[in-house]
C-alpha cells in the first residue's frame, strides 16, 4: 500500500509550517534516512527525513507553500512493486488527532466539567484515638518524643532506617537521633557526607526500591540543595507512574527560625512544600503530636516532609504512655476551645497562640486555638467549623506572610466561609525581610505573642 507522507509536527507547539523545499523529486528512489524536504517552522528550518523505503509518487504540496497544516498529505510514497501513479491521489486529511483533542472516547456533553472530575473523598470523622482512662502520662521533651517515635518504628519494621549528616556517631547535630546507632547499628543508622542533593536522591531511590528511609536534614535550609528530589523525584512519582511506583520516604529535620543564626539558616519552608501535590507535610508542636505523627509518617505509603523546630526540641510536654501512639495525618487539633475568635497556628506559633489566648482571656476574649499539625492535606473542615462558631479568625505563622499557609487559610475562608465572617481574616506572620542577625532586629522581625493579641483585638473590634 502506498504510504502517505504528511506534514509533520516538529515541535510540541507547531500547528502549521512552510514547505520550504523539496530535496527529492517525483520518481526518486527513497531509502530510510534520506532527507526528502525542508520545512520551516516558527523556530527553525527542519529536515524532513524518510522513515520508509520506496519511490516518491506524486508531490501534492508544492515547495514554497506557506501555512501547510500539520497532518496534510504532502506526497505519496510507493512501496516495492507498487505503481507510482496509483500512489498519486490521496484524500485530504480531515482532522488530526493530537494534543488537547479528544481521541477515541465518545463525546459527552459535560465532559471535563466539575461534576465528572471526581476529587478524592476526604476521610471524615477521623479523630485522635481515645486515650484510655487511667493511662499514665509522662513528661518528655519533643526531642525525645521524636527519637522514641523513630526507634519504635525501627523495632517494628526492618525496612526503616535513618540517614543524614551526623545522625550516627555524633548522635545527631541536634541530638534527635541520640542512641539510635547503639541500638540499631550502622546499617540502619547511616552517617552521610555533607551532600544533601546526593543523599536525598539515594534516600528517595531506596524508597522506590522498597525500603522505608528517614532522611534527616541537619536543617531544612540545607534541603534547598535537595528540593529537586523531594518534589520532582518523590512527590510526583506515584502520579507519573499511574500508581505503579510508590515512594514512602520521610524527610525530616528542624525548620524555620532558630536563634541568632542569620538569614540563610532561618526560613520556614512549610508553605513551599505544602504547595506540592503528592507530598504530605507535617509540622507538629508538642511532644505527643511529634511522636504520634512521626510514627504515622514512617508508616505512610506517601512521601512525607516532617518539619520540626529547633526552639521546641527542648520543651517538655505530657505524653500518654501507650504501646503504640499513632495519630491521624491530615487532622488539625483544637488546643483550646473558645467562642469569640479562632487563632489558627502550627509548629512554634501554637505556643505563642496559646499564650495569647491566656492573655486575651484576662481581657474577656475567649479564643479558640487550632493547631493544624498537618499542612498538606490541610484540615479545612476543622478550620471552617471553628469559623462558623466564632466568626472571627487570626492566623499565626512563624514565617513570611507572602504565599504563606496563612494566605491559604484566608483564601479558604473567603471561598468557603464568607457567610460566617464578621471581620476580615487576619494574618500575623514574620516581617517580610530576610531574618536579621542583630538581636533587636531579629526580635522585631519575628512573630510574637503581643502581635497576635493585637490582631485578635482588632478582629474583635476591641482596640
Amino acid at each position, binding site marked *: 500500500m502506498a504510504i502517505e507522507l*504528511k*506534514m*509533520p*509536527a*516538529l*515541535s*510540541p507547539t507547531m500547528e502549521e509550517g512552510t514547505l520550504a523545499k523539496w530535496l527529492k523529486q517525483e520518481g526518486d528512489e527513497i531509502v*530510510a*534516512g534520506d*532527507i526528502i524536504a525542508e520545512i520551516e517552522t516558527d523556530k527553525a*528550518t527542519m529536515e524532513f527525513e524518510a*522513515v520508509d523505503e520506496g519511490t516518491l509518487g506524486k508531490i501534492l504540496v508544492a515547495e514554497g507553500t506557506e501555512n501547510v497544516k*500539520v497532518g496534510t498529505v504532502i506526497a505519496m510514497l510507493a512501496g516495492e512493486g507498487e505503481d507510482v501513479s496509483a500512489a498519486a491521489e490521496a484524500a485530504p486529511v480531515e482532522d*488530526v*488527532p*493530537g494534543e488537547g483533542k479528544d*481521541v*477515541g*472516547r465518545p463525546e459527552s456533553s459535560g*465532559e471535563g466539567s466539575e461534576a*465528572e*472530575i*471526581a476529587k*478524592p473523598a476526604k*476521610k471524615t470523622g477521623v479523630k485522635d484515638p481515645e486515650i484510655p482512662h487511667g493511662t499514665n502520662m509522662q513528661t518528655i521533651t519533643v526531642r525525645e518524643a521524636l527519637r522514641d517515635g523513630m526507634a519504635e518504628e525501627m523495632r517494628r519494621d526492618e525496612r526503616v532506617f535513618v540517614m543524614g549528616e551526623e545522625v550516627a556517631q555524633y548522635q545527631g547535630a541536634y541530638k534527635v537521633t541520640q542512641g539510635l546507632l547503639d541500638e540499631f547499628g550502622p546499617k540502619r543508622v547511616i552517617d*552521610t*557526607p555533607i*551532600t544533601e542533593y*546526593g*543523599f536525598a*536522591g*539515594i*534516600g*528517595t*531511590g*531506596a*524508597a*522506590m*526500591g522498597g*525500603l522505608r528511609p528517614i532522611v534527616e536534614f541537619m536543617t531544612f535550609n540545607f534541603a534547598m540543595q535537595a528540593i*529537586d*528530589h523531594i518534589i*520532582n*523525584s518523590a512527590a510526583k*512519582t*506515584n*502520579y*507519573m*507512574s*499511574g*500508581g*505503579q*511506583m*510508590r515512594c514512602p520516604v520521610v524527610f525530616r529535620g528542624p525548620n524555620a527560625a532558630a536563634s541568632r543564626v542569620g538569614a540563610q539558616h532561618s526560613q520556614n519552608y512549610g508553605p513551599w512544600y505544602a504547595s506540592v*501535590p503528592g507530598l*504530605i507535610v507535617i509540622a507538629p508542636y508538642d511532644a505527643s503530636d511529634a511522636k504520634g505523627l512521626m510514627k504515622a509518617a514512617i508508616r505512610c505509603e*506517601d512521601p512525607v516532609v516532617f518539619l520540626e523546630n529547633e526552639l521546641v526540641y527542648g520543651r517538655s510536654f505530657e505524653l500518654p504512655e501507650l504501646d503504640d501512639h499513632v495519630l491521624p*495525618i*491530615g487532622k488539625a487539633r483544637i488546643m483550646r476551645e473558645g467562642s469569640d475568635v479562632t487563632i489558627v497556628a502550627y509548629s512554634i506559633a501554637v505556643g505563642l497562640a496559646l499564650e495569647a489566648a491566656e492573655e486575651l482571656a484576662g481581657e474577656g476574649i475567649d479564643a479558640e486555638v487550632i493547631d493544624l499539625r*498537618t499542612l498538606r492535606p490541610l484540615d479545612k473542615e476543622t478550620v471552617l467549623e471553628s469559623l462558623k462558631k466564632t466568626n472571627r479568625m487570626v492566623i499565626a505563622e512563624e514565617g513570611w506572610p507572602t504565599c504563606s499557609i496563612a494566605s491559604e487559610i484566608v483564601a479558604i475562608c473567603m471561598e468557603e466561609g464568607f457567610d460566617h465572617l464578621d471581620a476580615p481574616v487576619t494574618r500575623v506572620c514574620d516581617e517580610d525581610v530576610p531574618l536579621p542577625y542583630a538581636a533587636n532586629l531579629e526580635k522585631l522581625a519575628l512573630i510574637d505573642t503581643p502581635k497576635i493579641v493585637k490582631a485578635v483585638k482588632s478582629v474583635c473590634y476591641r482596640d
Partner: protein
Amino acid sequence: MAKAPKNKTPRSPAENPDFALHSLQEEFEKNKRFDASKEQMQDFYEQMLLIRRFEERAGQLYGLGLIGGFCHLYIGQEAVAVGLQSALTEKLDSVITGYRDHGHMLAYGIDPKVIMAELTGREAGISKGKGGSMHMFSTEHKFYGGHGIVGAQVALGGGLALAHQYNEDGGLCLAYFGDGAANQGQVYETFNMAALWKLPIVFVIENNQYAMGTAVSRSSAETEFYRRGTAFRIPGMKVNGMDVLEVRQAAEIAFKHVREGRGPVLMECETYRYRGHSMSDPAKYRTREEVQDMREHRDPIEGLKKTLIEQGSSEDDLKAIDKDIRKVVSEAADFAENSPEPDPSELYTDVLVEEY
C-alpha cells in the same frame, strides 16, 4: 594500558595491584567481544531492530501530532541497552535511566503496545497516560523510570543499589545517564557515596557525543568519561557502544566485579544518536555527513547483521525478522492510536496512595 608493576611497593592507588582502577579495562581488552550463541545473537538483532522500528514509528506518530510534548528517540544507541540488559538477572537487578527511555523498556521485553500507548497519552499506557514519553516505569521488571531531570536518576539509582545491599538480595542497579548528565554535581555526590559504601551499582554513561546541541568537547573538561570515577576510586571501562557484543562482554566483567561486593563500576559506552535531541531539534550543530558516516560505518544493527550473515544466516531470514517486527510495531501504533484517552475521573487519582 599500563600494567601495575608486581613486587613493588605501590606509589599511587593506580599502581596498587589490589586497586581495580584499570583491572576491569585490562580484562576487557583481552577479549572484547562476547562469545554469543547464534540464538543469542539473533535475539540481540531482534531486540535492536524492534527498538529501531519502534522509534521510527514514534517519530512518525509525533509528526502526525499523535505524540505530544517532548519525545527523545533512541535510534543509533540500541546496542547499549540491549547489550547491558541482556546480562542482567531478571526480577532481581534494577534499572533506572533518564528521559530517553523507550529503548530500555523495549529491551526488557515490555509489550510495545503499552509503551506506544503511553507515548500517545492513552489510558492503556504503562503509566495510564499520566507519565508520557519521559516517565515510564515497570516495577514488575524492576525498571524504575523514566526521569526528566538530567542526572536525578544517578542518585536515585544509588538508592536502588542501597536497597539491594540492605536487603542482601545479591542484586545490582544499572543506572544509565548521558554525557550531558555526567557534568551534574549530584552524579559526583553519588559516586562518592557509592564508592564509600561499596554499593552494587554500574554507572553507565551513554556518551552519544552531544548534550542536546552541545558537543562533549564544548561542555566537558574531561571527555574521556570513563576516567571520571578516578577521584572516587571507581574503576572505569571504555566500551564501543555501537557493538552489542562488546557491550555485553563489558557488562559481564562489570557485573561480576559488582556482584563480588567490590563496589561500583563506571562504564562509558561511546555511541551516537542519529536523530535530534528531541523531536523539535533541527540538529544544526553537526553536519549531515557526520550522521551519514555513522549510519554507514558504525551502525549497530548493520554491524550485527554482517556477523550473522558471516555465520550462516541468510538475507531472507533477516528480512523475515524485519517484516515480523514491522508488523508488531504497526500493531502497537494502531493500538496506541485507537485506545481511548484516560477517563476524566483519572485526573485526581494516584496523587497520593492513601486517603487522609
